């Protein structure tokens, strides 16, 4: 076993542990810290980020209040770069007892905390979203703190003073020796497991400080010490944007959900307090989410309508002293235990309790004790010296716009890896190289990568690519890290997914499952370094019964002009395909849509069915074979309703359009083709454009994957390493072209536009030709021209003398846009029109026949009268179906019947990438064989409304890989039916 010697071992890399380490090092002790994951992985990184003024404890715990205020002042001095001086408002809402106010003010005064009375007028001027019915407001010196940065900088300072930090070292047990003189047990270090190298390490130390918060009891137990912890779980929610710029607390005795903290770009509301048996097994209950939202509503009316990004839970590190009935009643002042005195075990101190705000003070007291035990007199200096700052030359208070300012000053918006949190390539590079990040989650803690609204849609992929290209890790390791990160983001989303965040999750599924096929990544699925999960509660209340809400109905408008033949609502694949097919049959067609949709995000191939249902694990070799079985086993599946014949005719018609548009597609229902993705996985699809066909993985010819410098949506090294891991020979190269170097940003769209230009193609050819090596085909990102891809392909193939193929990846999808442009052009040729920005929100009907739909417009709504209407608004992803936070699911235009799984618990799989898919996404409108929507008794709701594409129930097009296929089959069949009906 590897052995390390130190004098003092600190266990736990949270606020307390790092502060103890820093204090020890500053007083000249040789010391070392071990942390089982990354710094601030535990409770420190999971609290709401509040620098207490102390006012919260002013009434009940004056000692804690005073300590807090003193430390508040110290921390502002020594870590200004971690503290945003937002100030705090204590507000007396109509729900709070005014009798608390005098006690509160008195308590603050006694604890020496400055309070200032603020008029409601001024309060609203500062924070306009607060409830105007608030009756009292007091300003206190609360602030918002970055606990990740603080832990890192504290550790950094400790290192500067000679300390050592070992992350991903999990303590297995304390080492116990016996004092030969007294027979007393002595703790002599610890045995750890190095999770990265997967090996045990023995650390010898003459003194151990147990600073691992809620886990302190577990550690002490390995030395035979009985330490009763009272882990109090607190759940918090992050909202999509700040809402407030001041810390808001309720002026009442501390309770649940009464603190709202602006933290960087988000607002955090917390918290609950629930006693749990084990800090490693937490669950986030739906009542906690509801409670927090309800309490938020009392501070900010309309709170419920704001988007919630995620939920997480931390565990309060309290040691049982008295026998309290409720955790909040225990003194929040901390506890330092010398186990020699308490348990007769030498060499072990436990420091626990307290708050983030008091962590420095706790360290000071602990190290004072260390000095006393070691009989040395070294004064504490941690309150005198400012923490180092790698970001800024001078440590300064941060403000929200800092990142934006930095990017704007240097115009580096093209270097963004995480677009939501404005994390640049340099930030990620620094955390990988300088800070030695081992996982994407480590990069997140250092940079806020993936913590914004999309929860990692783009940056997960980009950071994984950078990790691979900077560290040259094995494919397995990068893949695991990517999986872990997707999963870590998912677990914080699970408790809160509804509304737009549910749509976001579906979008991420489209990217990572449908387009990139991340479930197909080679290598292990189980990771030692993965963040732990929240357990899932199954005590969930069932979804409420469907409310009887009818769509907004407007009286049938007068119109003397002729109705349109067909109005299609939605312009994703299904809407455009249906409009085109209806137009082919002579209908005058109008497409009304809120905006563009699926084509922009898709692979640009035509997926029919890629995996064997219902598990989607085994690749389908022949779509026809699967379909033949599917139409029998699942008679309500859209393919079964449309029939295979309709699909086959649709494909023929589609191919004819592609040929006519000089963008030919290859393939047939008889066989799927496996094509590489931008992750280097293989993705089964049925019909592929000429620009991709040479990527066929069943051929064995070696390939060269070509990327472009500073194009962060495509990492040839990542692709090649994964392809090689699957036995496909691939090399990689990155081109650094002069014409790209001068651009401030390089996106897929920029490259596609450049590829349309022959001079740029020549530049690529000249750079690539001498470096081809012994390959037989070349893979490019899917950016080979937007307007004339065939010309681009031909030019490159002829000049390079090799076959070329495109590899689809992150949105926007250039091949998808080509398909959209092709379909829109076809519709326009048939004198149809496509209107974007005109979402349909209301309807006028006459019995079971829709007369008109109304679209949103400036100042009023506009009616559109037609004979037939097509609903092609998509599912949760397209915005055709929305699920409210009370689990009520709604089809968004006509409020057609949609059914969700009864228990919210059943909506999701625990794993984001679980191939079976999440049951909630099978939600949709049930129809008859003519795609007319049905009510719950099986009756037709509207005879002249047909539903197509993703809005249909009984399928999960993203998991089945059937998105385009279902759009083709249902769109074609419905167009056929409209034509048949009009002839009758």
């Amino acid at each position, binding site marked *: 076993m590897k052995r390390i010697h130190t004098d003092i071992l600190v266990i736990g890399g949270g606020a307390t542990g790092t502060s103890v380490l820093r204090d020890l090092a500053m007083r000249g002790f040789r010391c070392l810290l071990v942390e089982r994951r990354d710094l601030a992985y535990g409770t420190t990184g999971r609290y709401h980020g509040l620098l207490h003024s102390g006012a919260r404890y002013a009434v009940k715990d004056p000692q804690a209040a005073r300590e807090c205020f003193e430390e508040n002042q110290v921390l502002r001095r020594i870590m200004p770069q971690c503290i945003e001086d937002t100030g705090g408002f204590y507000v007396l809402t109509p729900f709070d007892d005014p009798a608390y106010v005098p006690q509160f003010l008195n308590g603050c005064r006694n604890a020496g905390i400055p309070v200032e009375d603020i008029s409601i007028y001024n309060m609203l001027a500062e924070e306009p979203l607060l409830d*105007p*019915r608030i*009756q009292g407001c007091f300003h206190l010196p609360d602030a918002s703190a970055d606990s990740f940065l603080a832990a890192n900088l504290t550790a950094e300072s400790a290192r500067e003073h000679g300390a050592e930090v070992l992350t991903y070292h999990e303590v297995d047990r304390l080492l116990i020796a016996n004092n030969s003189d007294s027979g007393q047990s002595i703790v002599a270090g610890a045995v750890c497991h190095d999770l990265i190298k997967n090996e045990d390490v023995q650390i010898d130390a003459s003194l151990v400080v147990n600073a691992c918060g809620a886990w302190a009891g577990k550690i002490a137990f390995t030395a035979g010490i009985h330490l009763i912890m009272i882990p109090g779980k607190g759940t918090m929610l992050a909202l*999509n*944007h700040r809402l407030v*710029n001041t810390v808001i607390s309720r002026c009442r005795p501390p309770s649940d959900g009464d603190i709202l903290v602006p933290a960087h770009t988000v607002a955090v509301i917390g918290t609950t307090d629930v006693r749990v048996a084990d800090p490693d097994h937490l669950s986030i209950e739906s009542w906690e989410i509801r409670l927090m939202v309800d309490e938020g509503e009392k501070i900010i*009316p309309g709170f419920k*309508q*704001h988007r919630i990004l995620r939920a997480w839970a931390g565990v309060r590190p309290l040691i049982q002293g008295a026998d309290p009935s409720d955790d909040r009643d225990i003194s929040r002042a901390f506890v330092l235990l010398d186990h020699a005195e308490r348990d007769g075990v030498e060499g072990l101190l436990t420091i626990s309790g307290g708050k983030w705000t008091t962590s420095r003070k706790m360290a000071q007291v602990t190290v004072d004790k260390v000095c006393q035990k070691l009989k040395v007199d070294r004064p504490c200096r941690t309150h005198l010296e400012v923490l180092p700052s790698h970001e800024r030359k001078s440590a300064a208070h941060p*403000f*929200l*716009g*800092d*990142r*934006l*300012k930095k990017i*704007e*000053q240097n*115009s580096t*918006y093209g270097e*963004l890896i995480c*677009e*939501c949190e*404005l994390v640049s390539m340099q930030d990620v590079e620094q955390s990988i190289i300088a800070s030695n990040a081992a996982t994407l989650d480590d990069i997140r803690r250092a940079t806020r990568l993936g913590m*914004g*609204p999309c929860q990692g849609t783009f940056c997960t992929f980009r950071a994984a690519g950078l990790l691979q290209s900077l560290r040259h890790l094995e494919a397995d390791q990068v893949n695991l890290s990517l999986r872990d990160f997707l999963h870590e983001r998912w677990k914080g989303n699970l408790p809160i997914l509804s509304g*737009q965040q549910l*749509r*976001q999750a579906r*979008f991420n599924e489209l990217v990572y499952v449908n387009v990139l096929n991340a479930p197909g990544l080679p290598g292990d699925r189980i990771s030692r370094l993965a963040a732990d999960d929240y357990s899932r509660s199954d005590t969930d209340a069932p979804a409420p019964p469907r409310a009887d809400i009818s769509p907004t109905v407007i009286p049938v408008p*007068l*119109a*003397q002009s002729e109705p349109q033949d067909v109005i299609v609502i939605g312009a994703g694949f299904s809407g455009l395909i249906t409009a085109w097919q209806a137009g082919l049959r002579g209908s005058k067609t*109008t497409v009304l849509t*809120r*905006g*563009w*949709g699926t084509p*922009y995000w898709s692979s640009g191939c035509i997926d029919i069915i890629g995996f064997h249902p219902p598990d989607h694990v085994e690749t389908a070799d022949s779509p026809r074979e699967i379909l033949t079985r599917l139409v029998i086993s699942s008679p309500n599946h859209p393919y079964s309703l449309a029939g295979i014949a309709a699909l086959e005719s649709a494909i023929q018609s589609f191919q004819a359009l592609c040929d006519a548009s000089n963008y030919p597609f290859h393939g047939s229902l008889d066989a799927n083709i496996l094509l590489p993705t931008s992750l280097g996985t293989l993705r089964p699809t049925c019909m592929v454009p000429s620009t991709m066909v040479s990527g066929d993985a069943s051929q064995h010819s070696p390939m060269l994957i070509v990327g472009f410098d500073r194009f962060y949506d495509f990492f040839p090294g990542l692709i090649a390493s994964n392809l090689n891991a699957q036995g496909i020979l691939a090399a990689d190269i990155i081109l650094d072209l002069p014409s790209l170097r001068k*651009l*401030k*940003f390089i*996106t897929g*769209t920029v490259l596609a536009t450049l590829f349309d230009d022959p001079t740029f193609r020549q530049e690529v050819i000249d750079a690539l030709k001498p470096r081809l090596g012994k390959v037989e085909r070349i893979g490019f990102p899917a950016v080979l021209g937007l307007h004339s891809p065939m010309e681009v392909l031909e030019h490159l193939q002829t000049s390079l003398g090799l076959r070329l193929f495109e590899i689809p990846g992150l*949105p*926007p999808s250039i091949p998808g*846009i080509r398909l959209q442009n092709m379909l829109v052009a076809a519709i*326009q040729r048939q004198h149809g*029109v496509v209107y*974007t*920005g*005109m*979402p349909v929100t209301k309807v006028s009907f006459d019995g079971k026949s829709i007369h008109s739909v109304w*679209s*949103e*417009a*400036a*100042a009023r709504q*506009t009616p559109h009268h037609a004979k037939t209407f097509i609903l092609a608004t998509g599912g949760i992803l397209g*915005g055709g179906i929305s699920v409210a936070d009370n689990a009520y699911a709604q089809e968004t235009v006509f409020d057609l019947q949609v059914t969700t799984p009864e228990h919210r618990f059943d909506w999701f799989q625990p794993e984001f990438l679980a191939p079976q898919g999440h049951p909630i996404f099978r939600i949709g409108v049930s129809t008859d064989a003519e795609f007319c929507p049905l009510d719950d008794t099986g009756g037709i709701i509207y005879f002249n409304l047909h539903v197509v594409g993703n809005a249909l129930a009984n399928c999960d097009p993203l998991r089945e890989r059937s998105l385009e296929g279902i759009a083709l089959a249902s769109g074609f069949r419905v167009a056929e039916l409209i034509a048949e009906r009009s002839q009758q």
Partner: protein
Amino acid sequence: MSSSASLISQKLLQGRNFSSPEFTLDQCIKCTICTTACPVAAVTDLFPGPKYEGPQAARFRVPKQVSPDHSVDYCSGCRVCNLVCPSGVKIAELNARARAAWVSSGNLPFRLRLRNNLLARPELLGKLAHPFSPLANRLLSLNSIRHFTEFALRIHHSAPLPRFSPQSFTSWFRSRPNPLSSAKKVVYFHGCSTEYYEPRVGRAAVQVLELNGFEVIVPPQNCCGLPLLSNGEFHAAHRYHHSNVNHLVEYARQGIPILGTSTSCTLTLKEEAPELLDMTDEATRLVAENTYDFNEFLLNLYDQGSLNLNLHPIPLILGYHVPCQYRAHRLGTPGFELLNLIPGLSIVDSHATCCGIAGTYGYKAEKYAISMAVGKPLFNFLTGDLKNSPVVVCDSETCRWQITHATGKPAIHPVELLAKSYGLTIEDALI
């Protein structure tokens, strides 16, 4: 708390606007469609695109801190992003507000702010120059003067400045013989361009309306304030809009429709000003709800069967460009549909997103090249198969000037074709 105070609180609560631009940023799922469709980001790397400027940067902006971003000033405000967003994020409005914050915090150099304020006040320029229009036109057509204004004021020397008309629209309107009196009344909002530069459009509009039996009222009015809004001068824009609402609200109360031939003026009355300036009062709302684009109004008449269809053939093939500000009304293409009623006339839609001028954007020296690059697909369309068409049809004045500047073709409003088809004689008609 007194009951009056609680009443005020109730009012404040009701005033919360959950469709405000800031609120819609929560709807963004980062899908990048807006940035992919943005005509400006497609031609310059000075503008990183609507996703970055709008829902992303908005999360980093705090009211009281100096707005740190300047790239948002490259947003042309064409609103293509709003129209393609599948989630309903009001990106263009987020950008406009960010620009206003940036301007009001004094980040814009004095000279540029002066320039913007000049460009943003077509009414003031019109009033000042109109009495001397021949001289003003002569001066502004001199190359040396234009180069000097570029040097002094950063107004690009090639940008398409319009010519002042010798007679203003309102003086024609007041002096014309035999105006129609009728129980059916409409209010005409002429806007600055019709008043000072293209009164022919207003003359056509008034005569077409009278031919359809409407009495036309032209109340006192001022600039709609859009140029100020798009230059981030919100305080001034607020004054303008407030004054217009005062002039117009009585007509709105009586249910008299307010029509405009300038699509950007009508959009400002309908939506832009109330939304960007947070004007939620009843008068503003009433004016907005009673404002109609000219084509929209006529097409409604057609739908109700009351449009005069006594139209003479115009045997021409003409290119038609729907301005981005017109698309932002979200009405479809009423101009196109209306023109299709004219026998013999064949109208070809450009399907181009934007001509590039975007109000005052293309006049600015630092943005002129971007503006011309944005409009290139449109110019290519108009000078390709349609090169022999005598005129181009376009609803918005600055777009018409830009089109004429870039293609050399005269450009007209649809109402001018309609007037011709009705057999009306319009003074200074281009067709």
